[in-house]
């Protein structure tokens, strides 16, 4: 890959595209933004591939690039409203109304978090990463991950209390 093989690039895109798209989608709650940012993450990763010391850590490195892109994107874009998510979502109109309502509430609660807290929460609860792995992926100390996670957890419990009790 580091020699610039196009096949290797295709292989890596094929391998990571779904997980990267899902994380971008969770971070931005928008299909268009996830589409754009996930592709941009690949382009940036391939352009800077020589900076990657260990080829086996391509996945975490790519995730880190994506999270930074998403945080920058969140700083620029005001989070979209609930209705916007629904029009963007490929979900069928016949989806269960209650499930949909719960999902929207959760998405809104995630969107209302600070982008750095949002990244930690999604990597922890959705990707199932350990705190040390999140610290590696975000390039910050484990203590910072811990405090962001605690702060985000308190906010989420406050907003979604009736769903989790």
């Amino acid at each position: 890959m580091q020699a610039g093989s196009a096949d290797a690039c295709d292989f890596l895109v094929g391998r990571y595209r779904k997980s990267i798209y899902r994380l971008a989608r969770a971070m931005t709650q928008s299909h268009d933004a996830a589409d754009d940012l996930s592709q941009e993450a690949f382009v940036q990763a391939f352009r800077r591939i020589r900076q990657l010391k260990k080829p086996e850590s391509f996945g975490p490195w790519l995730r880190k690039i994506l999270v930074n892109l998403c945080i920058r994107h969140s700083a620029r874009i005001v989070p979209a409203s609930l209705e916007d998510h629904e029009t963007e979502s490929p979900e069928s109109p016949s989806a269960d109304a209650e499930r949909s309502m719960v999902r929207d509430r959760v998405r809104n609660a995630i969107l209302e978090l600070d982008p750095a807290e949002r990244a930690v929460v999604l990597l922890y609860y959705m990707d199932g990463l350990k705190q040390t792995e999140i610290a590696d992926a975000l390039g910050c100390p484990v203590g910072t991950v811990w405090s962001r996670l605690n702060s985000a957890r308190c906010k989420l419990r406050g907003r979604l209390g009736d769903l989790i009790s």
Partner: protein
Amino acid sequence: MDCSKARDLIPRYCNGELDDGTRRQVEKHISGCPDCRTEIEQERSLGRVLGQSASDDPPEEYWGSYNERVRSRSRAAVGMLWRMGSIPGCLAGAFSGLIYSGVFLWLFLGHGLRSVHSAWLKDTLVALILVATGVVVYLTGKALLTKANRRVLPRYERDESSLKRAIAANPALRRILIGLLMVGYVGISVFSTFLYTGMWGLVRWLPPNWVINALRAMMLIAFTAGIPGQYVMTCGYMDGYIHAFEWCQKHRKYLLLLKVWLILVGIAMLAVGVWHLTILVR
């Protein structure tokens, strides 16, 4: 273990991050503590709720063209930078040729500045022309490097015009640069030290304008070897030295000081030259 400590550990307990000993301690505590059991339930429940909020994946046809879109986006990024690099590159090349063929001959032949009577104005004009030439040569070099990188670098990295990268990928360029650096630095050092100290008499038969212009040409060679900032700075320094030298000819007690200073500058420049060479050779 008390409740406060257990609550700190509960998220990591639920995520399977605790070692066996700590995990057993937490389990022992929660077996007798209903509050902490509730805390664990809430933590798991939060994980479930957040997990359920994940959006459905896009349909399969979305992924069909995904790789191609990443590829074309990479090409577009390269193309944009390449186009940006080529326009100033072409302009710079044309302008550079004009300056080399015309203005330098004009200066070296000594006809152009004959009509200018003020020495300071003359020097300023020469310095301005040289700085403009330096900028043009820098832009040309950058455009050429971008082009060289485009040929030899992997597809996703061709938009970078890094000198180091081009050198690493192109042995011929490396040899040329080593040659230029050696000529440039040795030339600068010889001229800026021995010329003004011991060897001045040997080249006294040259008209002063030729000597000054030869010095500047050496600066230009050093610049071409890849140190534009140094070129511009050195040009300024050299003008300063020339004036200082002229002044010292009249106030001879300061001449030794100037000579010592120039020797130190020469040694420093040689050291920088050797350093740059080691970067290239490495």
